[in-house]
């Protein structure tokens, strides 16, 4: 029905999905950026208000508008997630390419991955972010430096498979440089994994940010990150103030979902086989 009415090819549809998710994400982020301090200030007259037309997401125990706080928090979380996921993906890709060089480098990378995976993730995260002085900077560095191992492992195994492919042999025999082989054969095949890895790391990073904030090592509590909002609302949940957790949680879920949609669509977009399947 839908397909017939608009008569779009799969490639076009994928394109519109990409545009849609980008626009939605942008809306979320920009609405957060334009929220002034005034909208976040304490308002003792409207404490613990249920969701209403004036305050769509309700108000908290200090009378602050939850919608404004959520949007502001989403923007912050989005920033943390993007930077951490991006840094981790880049580290993973670089290490994979480094591992593809020869046996020794491969062993080094494998060892490094094993080393990082052998220490409990959260402990390492705490240590690193503490070493770098905590706060926003510490959290970002900590998240970036601890999320790459599993992705590196995945990319490395994929890379090993590609390296033995016949077309790589052909290129080597033709006398192509390692750089050329990496750019034309290995990276294009790693991109889909990288995209998926990136979209999976993104919520992972946000949740880890939330958890170390919850433990008190993360962002300062006056910054309304989603993690802070959720951990604070815990105390009020038992007294029936459901909106304090439901709306921020739901927004986070929607954002992660949108991001996932974007990643998957981009993945399809760069795959020649999918792009030309027709309907």
């Amino acid at each position: 029905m839908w397909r017939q009415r608009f008569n779009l090819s799969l490639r076009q549809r994928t394109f519109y999905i990409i545009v849609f998710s980008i626009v939605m994400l942008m809306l979320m982020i920009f609405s957060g950026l334009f929220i002034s301090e005034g909208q976040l200030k304490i308002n003792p007259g409207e404490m613990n208000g249920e969701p209403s037309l004036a305050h769509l997401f309700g108000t908290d125990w200090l009378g602050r508008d939850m919608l404004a706080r959520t949007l502001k928090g989403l923007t912050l979380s989005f920033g943390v997630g993007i930077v951490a996921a991006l840094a981790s993906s880049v580290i993973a890709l670089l290490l994979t390419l480094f591992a593809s060089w020869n046996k020794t480098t491969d062993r080094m990378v494998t060892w490094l991955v094993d080393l990082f995976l052998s220490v409990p993730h959260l402990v390492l995260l705490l240590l690193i972010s503490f070493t770098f002085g905590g706060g926003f900077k510490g959290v970002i560095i900590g998240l970036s430096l601890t999320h790459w191992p599993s992705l590196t492992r995945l990319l490395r195994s994929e890379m090993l498979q590609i390296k033995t492919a016949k077309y790589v042999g052909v290129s080597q025999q033709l006398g192509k440089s390692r750089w050329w082989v990496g750019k034309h054969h290995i990276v294009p095949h790693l991109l889909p994994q990288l995209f998926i890895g990136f979209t999976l790391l993104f919520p992972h990073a946000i949740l880890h940010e939330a958890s170390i904030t919850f433990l008190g090592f993360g962002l300062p509590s006056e910054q309304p990150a989603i993690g802070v909002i959720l951990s604070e609302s815990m105390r009020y949940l038992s007294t029936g103030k459901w909106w304090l957790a439901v709306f921020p949680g739901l927004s986070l879920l929607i954002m992660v979902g949108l991001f996932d949609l974007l990643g998957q669509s981009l993945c399809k977009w760069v795959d020649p086989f999918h792009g030309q399947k027709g309907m």
Partner: protein
Amino acid sequence: MSQEKLLEVKNLKQHFKTGRHSVVKAVDGISFDIYKGETFGLVGESGCGKSTTGRSIIRLYNATDGQVTFGGEDVHGKKSKAKLKEFNQKMQMIFQDPYASLNPRMTVMDIIAEGLDIHGLVNNQQERKARVHDLLERVGLNKEHASRYPHEFSGGQRQRIGIARALAVDPEFIIADEPISALDVSIQAQVVNLLKDLQKEHGYTYLFIAHDLSMVKYISDRIGVMYFGKMVELADSEELYKNPLHPYTKSLLSAIPLPDPDYERNRVRTEYNPADHDTSETPEFREIRPNHWVLCTTKEFEAYKKEIKN
């Protein structure tokens, strides 16, 4: 056929370490020559080292021992960059699996032009395009195919793309590593005929590796039979089919099915038992008749000579 040697393989050995003390002798001291403009067929059972031989010749593997000379120059020796490039251009390979040998994320244009760029055979985009179109037509595809991706083609068409890639750099010698084994029977003949036609037009020299004996007989001028990393018999293809001497060759030939029900009903397969050989000395590669070589001991040598006289 001119008798100018293009490729000489002398005592080529390719051993692979599989553990601390175990070594697989994939190719264990084989020698043969390939003359300019001929097709040399290499047959044998799975895992006997046919493909490894091909790959060692083209330097995909570093040979354990032995010498390969191509056009008078040592292939495995140290070479300057320019020499290496020249060598890379003259020798090309066509692979068995047309599905694994083409990068699914590159267009046919880029796949075929891969070699063109590095060897400086084209000066600009237009020449590159024209050249690829020409190559596509040469292998029986058309130029509209250039912008497509490998998954849009059938196995036979993909193999043609692989052939076009090999031809792109104007090679002299092409190693065809079971180029038809992965293809449908109806397509096999097309591809083999294409290879034959191209040879007629451009005078390529082929090393044709296969296990389909009837196909090998059809395309090859001379055939070498390999068994367990060793060359057991080498002769002109007519001679080999008429007078097979080594028991393994006989066994191989007895396995060819023919589209003749009467013959098939009475066909008896000769079994090959390596234990039947004379083990009093290490067998050597001897010439029984001009251009007909068999791996045998002195005793067997006499027996084969007698056999061929009758």
